[in-house]
């Protein structure tokens, strides 16, 4: 299933992602709620160090050991409503002090769970800094590719 993650920009400081998982909502929620589960997927196939205190006000810290280096992220849980909603802060330790807020919402239909995540950046510097390389002028992209990209956004 190619492109089963949709990414849109509902405003200039927000990124919204939607993904459907073939699993019940309670399980998808659980997969976000303890290191035992998170270490199996958050590292994108790379080993992950995980610390989390999964309660409102509790902190989390993940270190992904990727082939190109170690990447550390941290944050705090702002709101938890099992099994529907998690609001947390997200900070890349490579850019300390630039903190965004992620709101994760889960809904279930016909045994499949939709995860909708909205990341809100405080400032455009944070948004731009998140993906520095994305700002570079890329190789020529055809109008066909752009049309496909726009169709995806619609």
């Amino acid at each position, binding site marked *: 299933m190619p492109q089963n993650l949709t990414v849109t920009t509902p405003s200039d400081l927000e990124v919204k*992602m939607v993904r459907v*998982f073939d*699993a019940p909502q309670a399980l998808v929620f659980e997969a976000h709620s303890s290191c035992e589960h998170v270490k199996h997927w958050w590292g*994108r196939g790379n080993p992950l160090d995980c610390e989390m205190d999964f309660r409102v006000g509790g902190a989390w810290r993940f270190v992904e050991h990727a082939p190109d280096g170690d990447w550390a992220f941290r944050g705090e849980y702002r709101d938890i409503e099992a099994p529907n909603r998690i609001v947390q802060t997200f900070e890349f330790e490579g850019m300390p002090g630039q903190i965004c807020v992620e709101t994760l919402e889960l809904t279930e239909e016909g045994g499949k769970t939709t995860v909708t995540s909205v990341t809100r950046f405080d400032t455009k510097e944070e948004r731009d800094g998140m*993906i520095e390389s*994305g700002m570079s*002028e*890329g190789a020529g992209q055809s109008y066909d590719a*752009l049309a496909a990209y*726009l169709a995806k956004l619609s």
Partner: protein
Amino acid sequence: MDRLSEVFSALADPTRRAILARLAEGEATVNEIAEPFPISLQAVSKHLKVLERAGLITRGKEAQWRPCRLDAAPLRGVAEWVTEYRRFWEERYDELGTYLTKIQKEN
């Protein structure tokens, strides 16, 4: 507002995204652009102004026709940003999908 913010804002509206998708097929006049939309010409003109300000379209000088053209350059910045962002989360969520399948089988 900086250019990337203007582009993000311009893309935040579904009608404006549809207008850009139409212009990706080729230049068009305001009337041609407005045709598929159940909104007034005036409303379409407003959307075109937002897109023009964001540098996403340019408008011809030819008298009253003033055809609109897509300018892909600023879109590229956003497209690349979104592509990079998507790449990370796609890999992460693919792993989650695989993991969820695995633990469901085990239970």
